[in-house]
């Protein structure tokens, strides 16, 4: 016992001499703005703890939009907002006006095939259609009879209420992610395809362009590689995305061609410009294309940043990223949305 006590005391002394230089951040349970606030042009939406927040100028507003939501999306005019509303083990797409009034549930939480996920809504240019992710159409599954239940890309017509599947996912990949219509044209889609590639097999994420007119898909990034979370500029000319690698998850920007007929070599993503390194997630363009907002991991917390971007001539960051929040633990698995 004496030896054990001596060991304890010695360990205590060693620890006391070697404490951390800075305490690890813990979730404060609220959105924290820095002392020197960064004004946000227009209205920028993000979620924290599955609650929806709006940043506008130096104002911060928590919107009453249901108990648990993620993946906000907003029309180009800013007059309608869509979110994925989460229940216990399912989710639905809900649209409303920007203050959460006049809510309309678009997708079912269950059908004959079982409970359903519906996630990541995105409006088209004129706000008439929504593209989103769902596992609808899957085979019923049980532990004795496992069936794939990956997320596919579907479209919802707000005028008619009709839905249709746009993309079948690869089985047992988790499915596709981050769909959005290309602004400026009505028949193009950009999203992330998840699959396995390389040898030996490894997880791969590829930026994918799709023609809704022909159904043709073209990969914009290589296999193997992890390029994901594409975000289109409001004029449809540029795409910001995350390039995952051993060193982190960097924010890159590349131009988009008017259309694609086949895979290009080198891939368009190969010549993308790195504009922000670190652990970055969920980029979204400012309505006027002058900046990109994103979430970045800083001292254990995902916080909201705005980076000025120049796209006339060579793409480059036109200044340093500015922190809109500080130590706020925003939901990095939830998209951002930005309207005028």
């Amino acid at each position, binding site marked *: 016992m004496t030896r054990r006590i001596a*060991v*304890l*005391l*010695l*360990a*205590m002394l*060693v*620890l006391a001499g*070697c*404490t*951390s230089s800075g*305490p*690890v*951040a*813990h*979730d404060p349970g609220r959105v924290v703005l820095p002392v020197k606030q960064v004004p946000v042009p227009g209205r920028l939406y993000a979620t924290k703890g599955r609650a929806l927040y709006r940043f506008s100028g130096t104002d911060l507003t928590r919107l009453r939009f249901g108990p648990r939501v993620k993946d906000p999306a907003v029309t180009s005019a800013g007059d309608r907002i869509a979110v994925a509303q989460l229940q216990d*083990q*399912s*989710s639905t797409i809900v649209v409303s006006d920007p203050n959460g009034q006049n809510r309309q549930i678009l997708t079912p939480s269950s059908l004959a095939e*079982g*409970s359903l*996920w519906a*996630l990541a809504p995105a409006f088209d240019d004129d706000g008439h259609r929504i593209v989103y992710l769902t*596992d609808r159409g*899957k085979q019923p*599954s049980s*532990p004795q009879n*496992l069936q*794939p*239940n*990956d*997320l596919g890309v579907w479209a919802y017509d707000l005028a008619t209420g009709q839905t249709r599947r746009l993309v079948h996912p690869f*089985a*047992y*990949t*988790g499915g596709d*992610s981050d769909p959005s219509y290309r602004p400026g044209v009505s028949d193009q889609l950009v999203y*992330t395809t*998840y699959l*396995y590639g390389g040898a*030996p*097999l490894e*997880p791969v*994420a590829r930026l994918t362009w799709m023609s809704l007119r022909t159904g043709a898909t073209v990969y914009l990034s290589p296999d193997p590689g992890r390029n*994901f979370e594409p975000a289109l500029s409001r004029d449809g000319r540029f795409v910001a995305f*995350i390039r*995952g690698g051993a060193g982190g*998850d960097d924010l890159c920007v590349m131009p988009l061609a008017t259309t694609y007929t086949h895979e290009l070599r080198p891939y368009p993503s190969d010549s993308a410009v790195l504009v922000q390194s670190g*652990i*970055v*997630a*969920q980029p979204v363009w400012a309505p006027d294309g002058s900046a990109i907002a994103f979430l970045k*991991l800083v*001292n*254990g917390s*995902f916080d909201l940043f705005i980076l000025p971007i120049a796209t006339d001539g060579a793409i480059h960051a036109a200044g340093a990223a500015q922190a809109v929040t500080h130590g706020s*633990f925003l*939901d*990095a*698995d939830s998209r951002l949305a930005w309207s005028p």
Partner: protein
Amino acid sequence: MNHSPATGVPDAPGSRRVRWIALGAIALALALIGGVLIYLSPLLALLEPHEASVGRVAGAPAAPPPPLDSKQRINILLLGSDNDQKFQQDALLSQTMIVVSIDPSTHQVTMLSLPRDLWVEIPGHPSAKIDLAYAQGGAPLARATVEKAFKIPIHYYAWVGLNGLVRVVDRVGGVDLDVLHPVLDDNYPNDFSESGYGTERVYLAAGPQHLDGRHALQYVRSRHGDLLSDFGRSVRQQQLLLAIQQRVAGMDLVAALPTFARDLNGHVKTDLDLLRLTQLALFMRDLHPGDVHQAYISAYVRDATSSDGQQILVADWPAIHAYLRQLFGGDLLP
């Protein structure tokens, strides 16, 4: 009036003051020591030899642990089990087996995942999947099995159950990691239902994010939505270990260790002693991401069926040993 008991001469006022000061100092020192002991007492409980408590004698490693002040490699076998209510608590399979090899001389760490379905010789038992060793003989047999098959000297072990992993992650304030694929599982085992049976639906978006203990467990346990099955799960388990290490790197160890120990008592078993645990915690805290290497033997195993019809993995042992010599140099058992 006070008198000196030896002489009967009254004490001078200065002498009494010195005595009171001395008594006060002793009392303060005792209070401090007592406080420290109370503060660290959870660690004492955590570091008690656990295997003895389930009727097994803790087995000795094939090679003794290097001295604290040496620069020799230290290998720790990390074991993880589903230990919810549906399992017999003294016969748990080790669904996770990772050798964490620490080389103090180069300040490098290698994590080597051992697939649970690997067919091996289990000392004193018939050949079986490697995850059965822990069920049949606890950490000592798991250690002996790994040492025999892989020729890696295992100096220490640490076992964690489902609740333990959740508590570790929550205690460090959650982890930040890059979810490699969307995780969708309509038949995920409901880890925390009272019966231990039943399933729930799980969805985790892909990409960098912050996960609490429950969601981190879902990330590393789910196999349904992963074409790489158990190998994919090994990759995710190592990701989580790295993420925990990165969170610990920013923590105040004085404050954290006793609280950790209190939370984990009964959910973690280890034969690490306190000084080694402290030494490792300090070592891990100073690691940079580039110092940690992830290793797998997936290239040296193939699917097969055992004579009793089990789906297993069989190893190309010469190739595995050559690979391990690349990783560990001459630090393997003969």
